């Protein structure tokens, strides 16, 4: 077991008239080296849960542990350090920085580590080549197609060689062919030993044989696991 969640609650605007319970008493264990899919309709709380697991936000109550290390309640600085070294993120809208080249976008998460520039560039180029993006390596990201943008996002997520990959609705902006292609890439990553956490309400994702486990969510609670 890699990640453990116990009695997690997330309340937005707590104490105000528009208080909203996004996550209610969730307990969950996520195994290492597997592909876990959080399935559910829009507003079910899967993205909120994912962001807490990925140290992008903190739970209102409950405990999140990563390999027996308690994450919830850690100061921002430590959370960032864990996020940087443990998690790689693939966002729904890719969230690449416009105006920067593919290579620069991929290198971006490693800048604060102060690595040797030559080594960093070589690693980024290797990843870019691996995902078949050599041709567009120096192009600005706004010139890329949806599929290419997503592969750049995957390269960026992998640049710090994280143990866990988090993908939020990764196929939402892709057509069927590209979605299937993405699942193929996930399979490849799983074989390299990565733990993958994915949210989706796309059948291509949760019906895919690549997914080892589906966690179904509704109204901030787990319905089926």
């Amino acid at each position, binding site marked *: 077991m890699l990640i453990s969640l116990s009695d997690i609650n997330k309340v937005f605007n707590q104490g105000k008239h528009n208080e909203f319970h996004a996550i209610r008493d969730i307990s969950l264990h996520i195994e290492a080296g597997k592909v876990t899919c959080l399935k559910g309709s829009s507003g079910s709380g899967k*993205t*909120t849960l*994912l*962001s807490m697991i990925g140290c*992008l*936000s*903190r739970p209102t109550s409950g405990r999140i542990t990563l390999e027996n290390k308690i994450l919830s309640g850690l100061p*921002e*600085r430590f959370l*960032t*350090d864990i*996020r*940087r*070294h443990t998690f790689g*993120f693939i*966002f*729904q809208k890719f*969230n690449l*920085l*416009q*105006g*920067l080249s593919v290579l*620069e976008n991929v290198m*971006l*998460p490693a*800048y*604060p*580590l*102060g*690595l*040797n*520039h030559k080594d960093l560039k070589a690693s980024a180029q290797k990843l870019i080549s691996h995902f078949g993006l050599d041709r567009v390596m120096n192009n600005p990201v706004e010139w890329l197609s949806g599929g290419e943008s997503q592969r750049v996002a995957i390269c*960026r997520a992998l640049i*710090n060689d994280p143990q866990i990959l988090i993908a*939020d609705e990764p196929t939402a902006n892709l057509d069927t062919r590209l979605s299937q292609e993405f699942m193929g890439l996930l399979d490849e990553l799983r074989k390299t030993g990565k733990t993958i956490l994915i949210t989706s309400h796309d059948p291509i994702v949760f019906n895919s044989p690549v997914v080892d486990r589906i966690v179904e969510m509704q109204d901030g609670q787990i319905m089926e696991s």
Partner: protein
Amino acid sequence: MIEFFRKQAYLIDFTMSSLLRRKGKNFGLLLVYTLIVFMLASVMLFSHSLRKEAGIILQQSPEIIVQRLVAGRHALIPAEYIQKMGRLRGVTSKKGRLWGYFYNPVVKANYTVMAPDHLDLSTTEVIIGAGIARTIGLGIGDYFTMRSNNDTFSFQVKDIIERNSELVTTDLVLISPKAYRVITGIPEGQFTDIVLSVRNPREVRKVAEKLVQKLPDIRPVLREEILRTYDSIFAWRQGIVFVLLIGALLAFVIFAWDKASGLSAEEKREIGILKAVGWESADILHMKFWEGIIISLSAFMLGYLAAYLHVFYSSAVLFESVLKGWATLYPQFKLVPFIDGLQIATLFFFTIFPYVVATIIPIWKASVTDPDAIMR
């Protein structure tokens, strides 16, 4: 340690590419910023150099000028006052001077007329300042005319005073003492004032005290007082220009504040992305710090360089009419470059520091929020 420097290099690299991504906005800001530094630095450099220049020239003037007062007003001083002063310790020479002002209604300019006795000038010769020569269009050998007591006197221009002292000699007319007495009607045995040279500067005040004790109707004017007056005149003029620049400064402050504090949705989104991919709040603050430094330092250096060229190579064409202060006879001269460290530090502090702070504060607010907004 090397990792820290590498990290800063990455952040600067990223900052530069961020600035270039918003070329129009940032170049506009840089231009306005540079212009402000240019104007402020021009005024500071120019006034400072003028004060220095005047100071250097006045260093050659006598240490004490003795004037006679009648009913509190400056009057002619009889030659026997030189004897009356007696032997004063430390005074190396005592000499009567003849000088005054002459208004030329044709060119509406006031000349300073002096009659030095050490120059070999005949009663029909004159030496004039470059400003007068330029205004009336005179050269060596031409005739220069002065009207006085219903008479007109013509003098042949023997020489024009060299340019490097034009700041204080632009309006100067030098004639022989004899001619001066004829024009002005000042009788023999009377002078405008008496000048004393004192070898040791620390004795000047003591000598002045002794003079007042011996001759109660005189007023000693010390060179250091004249220097101080020049200093305050130029400082006052500098102040006027600064007041005029306040409008421009305010406009810049509003512009810079708007630019620096008003984070666009795009910038906020980018901060969210950077945090989500593993940047700390401190990394983002460092990055924005470099952004502020790059813009403000570039503007400072460009503005200061432009001001330096403007003041010392084009004689400060934009400000000379206010700062030089002559009404008609504008002196034309190239200032010797003087750079004052404290002045640079002051300008640096007042232009760079506020901008960097104004850039960092709103970013700090944005960078300490949870990055999960980027997931939505």
